[in-house]
């Protein structure tokens, strides 16, 4: 029996602001087994980055967290600060959204990569740390001599590789990547993703990859969860969710990224009208119903629960009262 690397149970995160409390995450459950890659998809503001920030408890002070977040069997939400600092980076590390700003501009990148190594293991000397930095840089496809560079001397793609090298510095069991390729152009994006997923697979590390791009997630992850307005609306095997989405929102996300060589997707209306709802004024019933093409009267009254659905019901959960019916019509 293996213990999951990450086990999030009924997570609620509420931001307290001057304008009242904002429920950003409303009951998300998610788990990652050792060596597994799980993707989280959704529009901006759906709560996916908030979920990521709770894993190392990096959410701002104004956030109120309820539920459980177990990293390697230990609940991070109720952990003491000292224990939490030991867990951070050594057991679970993060690759942040904008590598452009996530590196300290006035420190050599080698020093920044070596910092967590020496922090978490006092027996690592300067020389040993420098050697390991060189290895890590080579693993991500940079030369070891780059350790002496400052962040401003690197390109965006190189900086993101440095972030990946840094995330691997302490041999963590879990890596959380929060939109690791958002600020990069498409070509570099593909290279960085390739380096990251390749290393994660090779080293047997669990990966939580957060992205708005469902096509990226479906090609790099084992499983994908789609989030909308602070909840998971569909979770399934990665390939299936892109090819055969069951929730109308997943279908819209999948349609937003046209497939090469498929004339049907080229001419069909891509994208979704409207904006995600204001978390302080959520619609009644299913939060997606005002934007949904398949909404029926009941959708504004019944708040659907995440339930097994579809032909692969052992592996798929959908929160839609019309799940099963909408198959085929959605795309």
């Amino acid at each position: 029996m293996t213990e999951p690397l990450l086990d999030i149970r009924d997570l609620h995160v509420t931001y307290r602001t001057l304008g009242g409390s904002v429920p950003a995450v409303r009951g998300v459950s998610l788990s990652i087994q050792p060596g597994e890659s799980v993707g989280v998809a959704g529009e901006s503001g759906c709560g996916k980055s908030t979920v990521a920030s709770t894993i190392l408890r990096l959410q701002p002070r104004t956030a109120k967290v309820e539920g459980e977040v177990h990293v390697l069997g230990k609940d991070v939400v109720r952990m003491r600060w000292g224990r939490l600092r030991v867990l951070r980076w050594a057991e679970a590390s993060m690759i942040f959204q904008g590598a452009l700003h996530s590196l300290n501009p006035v420190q050599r990148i080698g020093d920044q990569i070596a910092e967590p190594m020496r922090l978490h293991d006092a027996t690592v000397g300067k020389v040993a740390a420098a050697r390991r930095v060189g290895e890590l840089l080579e693993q991500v496809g940079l030369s070891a001599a780059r350790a002496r560079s400052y962040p401003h001397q690197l390109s965006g793609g190189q900086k993101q590789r440095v972030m990946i090298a840094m995330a691997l510095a302490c041999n963590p069991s879990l890596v959380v990547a929060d939109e690791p390729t958002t600020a990069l152009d498409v070509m570099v994006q593909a290279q960085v993703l390739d380096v990251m997923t390749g290393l994660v697979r090779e080293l047997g590390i669990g990966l939580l990859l957060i992205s708005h791009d469902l096509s990226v997630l479906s090609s790099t992850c084992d499983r994908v969860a789609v989030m909308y307005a602070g909840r998971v609306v569909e979770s399934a095997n990665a390939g299936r969710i892109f090819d055969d989405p069951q929730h109308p929102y997943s279908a819209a996300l999948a349609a937003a990224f046209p497939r090469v060589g498929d004339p049907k997707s080229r001419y069909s209306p891509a994208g979704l009208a409207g904006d995600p709802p204001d978390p302080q004024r959520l619609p009644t019933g299913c939060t997606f119903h005002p934007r949904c093409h398949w909404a029926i009267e009941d959708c504004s009254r019944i708040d659907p629960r995440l339930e097994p659905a579809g032909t692969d019901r052992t592996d798929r959960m959908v929160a839609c009262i019309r799940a099963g019916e909408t198959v085929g019509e959605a795309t």
Partner: protein
Amino acid sequence: MTAAAEVGVEPLPDVPQQRARSSRRSTGLWFLVRKLFGAATSLLFMLVVNFFLFRVIPSDPVRTLARGRATTPKQVAALTKTLGLDQPLPVQFLTYLKNTATGQFGVSFQYRQSVGSLLIDRLWPTLALVGTSTILSILIGLWMGTLAAWYRGQMFDTISTTGTIVLYSMPEWWLGLILFFLFAVGFGPIPGVFPIGGLIDPGVNGSSVHGVLNMAWHLTLPVVTLTIAYLAEYALIMRSALLDEMGEDYLVTARAKGLRDVLVRRRHATRNALLPVVTLVALNLGFIVSGAITIETVFSIPGLGLLTTDALKIPDYPVLQGAFLVFSASVIVANLIAQLLYGWLDPRVRL
């Protein structure tokens, strides 16, 4: 196969290392040369301004020196000749350049003594006063600003920010006078504890241990005045610079790495926040020098400041020129140090 596999690893990640290193060293050297050249240019400019600036003062040194005595026109003419003021301005300028080049700056009108040796005698009380208060105000100010920003909105921040704004709005000579009356002269029930002026008690040997302590005692109030007057600004600037940095993403990275709060602040945030502060400290040295002039007058410290105010009454051109050159040279050198320090703190500036 994915698109990434076709593209392969980024094609030109690295320049050959040898070339990269030598060019890095030469940019560092080039940076130094450029900064030195800039400082030298400013100093040359000051050298010229220095001469003409004090000749704009409307009073005539010969008449001031002869005041209170019955003088014949002949004696006045002789005095003018001794002081070299009978020469045309361009000739006087050349003499000034020659005297400056020798480092003696000519002979004081008032003291009939070489200005060079006069300046050296008066330099070190000012150096002790300005140096000590600069270092103290930087240390205390930056420490207060850092804590205020880190614990923004809490008790320490409220008290220190209110206090520093009050202090910041006080002119240093006014603060000096208040402290002078409170602690040197004595006010109401408070006895005057500190000496009311001078650098050392008469009859005390300045080179003995007792003499040094005696001087430190005399310098306490002036140093406290200048420190308080300048730490306020440093604290406010450090606070706002650090607050700017605190929203930055790299601090989240540092926290995620498992660093303690203190280390996040010390290793990552403070160094970035220091960048604007360094410039300010260097620029401020000009003001602190002028502050020294008024403070030395308030507390009668026989330093360069008091020498300057006394010389202005004549006006004693050679003394004024010498003192002014020392003041401006120290500001230029401080700025040079700041720029080099800036280059060291922020690698992006070295380009």
